[in-house]
């Protein structure tokens, strides 16, 4: 058995975790505002195709990411309008959003199959990147890896320390009380949905522009559902979302690397392990009786009353 290069392994894990981390942190904000959007998969794949198409046409991966965020956010607003203004069922509408995203992306992506996109360059942080070992592990990734971690920190700080975060949480915990206090529940939730859509779009674009990198129909292959599971796994807390995403990405990449290195590993168990861990965590939190779920999660809000 050959040894695995830990530096390359960690770099691979970060690349593998970033798409689900981006999508999951966005969904965390959405769910903390009391909305359950099951359309993450549809928004991710829309981001993947729009990001790829724009990057190919403009030659700029940055423009691709921006367009992906915008496109998915706009798509998520259709979910917002349906569930918040027209009070449709959130679960059904979210599933519908996934179906729409998958179909729409297949249509948009047809001309882009087999094309190459400009890749996102690794950041050169000067002397930091040249540090032995640490430089390679910490300071030589592309900008989206850092952005995704910064986003987690920002979401955590906003939710915990700012008035805006407090209002968002209030809306999510008890929308009637928040409404009685004069907060615009629907408007706040629409903003959260928009943010969640943008994050999912970035995650999707990271798949098609960095991780694979190419456009293939249906390429998210369930990543959006994993992001949803991670939010629950993390009991709706930002830093735990980070841990969940890295754990998930880590196990996947680690077992592939172990196999490639010729280690004798129980492949079937390792492939299933992230799902098993999620179930275990769910059992533990429900056994403790404290779910951490926002009080108004998934419940319709009727402002007229």
């Amino acid at each position: 058995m050959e040894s695995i290069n830990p530096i390359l392994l960690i770099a691979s894990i970060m690349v593998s975790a970033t798409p689900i981390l981006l999508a999951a942190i966005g969904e965390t904000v959405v769910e903390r505002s009391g909305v359950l959007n099951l359309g993450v998969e549809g928004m991710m794949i829309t981001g993947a195709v729009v990001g790829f198409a724009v990057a190919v046409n403009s030659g700029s991966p940055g423009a691709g990411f921006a367009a992906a965020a915008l496109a998915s956010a706009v798509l998520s607003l259709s979910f917002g309008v349906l569930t918040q203004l027209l009070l449709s069922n959130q679960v059904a509408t979210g599933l519908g959003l996934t179906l729409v995203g998958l179909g729409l992306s297949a249509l948009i992506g047809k001309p882009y199959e087999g094309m190459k996109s400009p890749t996102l360059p690794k950041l050169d942080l000067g002397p930091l990147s040249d540090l032995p070992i640490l430089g390679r592990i910490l300071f030589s990734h592309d900008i989206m890896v850092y952005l995704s971690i910064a986003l987690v920190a920002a979401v955590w700080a906003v939710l915990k320390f700012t008035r805006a975060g407090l209002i968002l949480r209030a809306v999510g915990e008890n929308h009637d009380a928040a409404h009685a206090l004069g907060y615009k529940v629907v408007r706040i939730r629409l903003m959260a949905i928009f943010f969640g859509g943008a994050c999912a779009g970035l995650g999707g674009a990271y798949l098609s522009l960095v991780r694979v990198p190419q456009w293939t129909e249906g390429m998210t292959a369930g990543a959006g559902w994993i992001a949803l599971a991670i939010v629950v796994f993390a009991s709706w807390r930002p830093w735990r979302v980070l841990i969940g995403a890295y754990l998930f990405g880590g196990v996947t990449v680690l077992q592939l690397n172990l196999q490639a290195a010729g280690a004798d590993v129980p492949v079937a168990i390792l492939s299933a392990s992230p799902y098993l861990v999620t179930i275990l965590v769910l059992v533990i939190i429900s056994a403790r009786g404290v779910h951490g779920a926002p009080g108004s999660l998934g419940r319709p809000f009727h402002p007229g009353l």
Partner: protein
Amino acid sequence: MNRRTLLASAAILAAAPAFAQDDPVKAGFIYVGPIGDGGWTYEHNQARLAVEEHFGDAVETVYQESVPEGADAVRAITQMALSGADIIFTTSFGYMDPTMEVAAKFPDVKFEHATGYKTADNVSTYSARFYEGRAIQGHIAGSMTETNKIGYIASFPIPEVIRGINSAYLHASKVNPDVEFSVVWAYTWFDPAKEADAARALIENGNDVILQHTDSTAPQAAAQEAGDVITFGQASDMAEYKPQPRVSSIIDDWAPYYIDRVQAVIDGTWESQQVWHGIDEGMVEIGEITDAVPEEVREEALALKEEIASGEYHPFTGPINRQDGSAWLAEGETADDGTLLGMDFYVEGLTGEIPN
């Protein structure tokens, strides 16, 4: 299902025989991935389109893509049978038991299951001898590797996949005795991100040839990014990645078979059978061998293809031992189809274990 839809479907079932003569024959297809995967499902869908073009208005086709293998497949196949399909092609190994289950409930519908081994009066199986193409890939891979390390992205530990690994290894080690195979089991047919991760893990471990038995072009993209790596198109030509990394390919051509079977349904001559076609019949095609391959290797590969097509040479010709060193095929003996169809062991020289 509520009472109203139940009644409606019962009514359709009752009405169906009366219209059978005038209606176009309806052919259904169940796909494991999206039709735009660029590989396996893409080729099955191309064959479906060929059926439409061949028969025109006489045949109507329907398909459902990305149907998970297992219980969900039962629902999808049942739905297709209820909607009036006369013949249903289920195009992945994992649909075997679901196909048998649904077929038992619809004795008048014909079923065609790809790559499986279970049949019934109204269930046929069909597959291609991909291992013939794998022999040619193995020959090119063994000749061209510089690190003597060849990576293989496998999907599930089923006979079809194990056959491919064995065939590729036998022919790679024949031209290059130092060659080593690293097999990574992805446990998926289609997940571009995971396939790319697997390719990257293999490349980082020093493999400079990547063979894949998964359906998307993602490993090709990962190899292209890495640079000095060669790959082979799987199930489809994957011509976008020519001339390198993709230096050749196995192309599955299902169209003649599909047209033939739909014609049999129209004529009323359809019978249950087990079909296993190879290079000779054209079900397995070898895609263009590009300039990235040295001329002599190219010629050897084409000669090998001719020998296999003419039946002069069988890719599993003894002496071949099993991985544990026990004898499998004696000198000059060729493998019988029964053993090949149920192959669950590695040949001697391969390292690692086949997961259960």
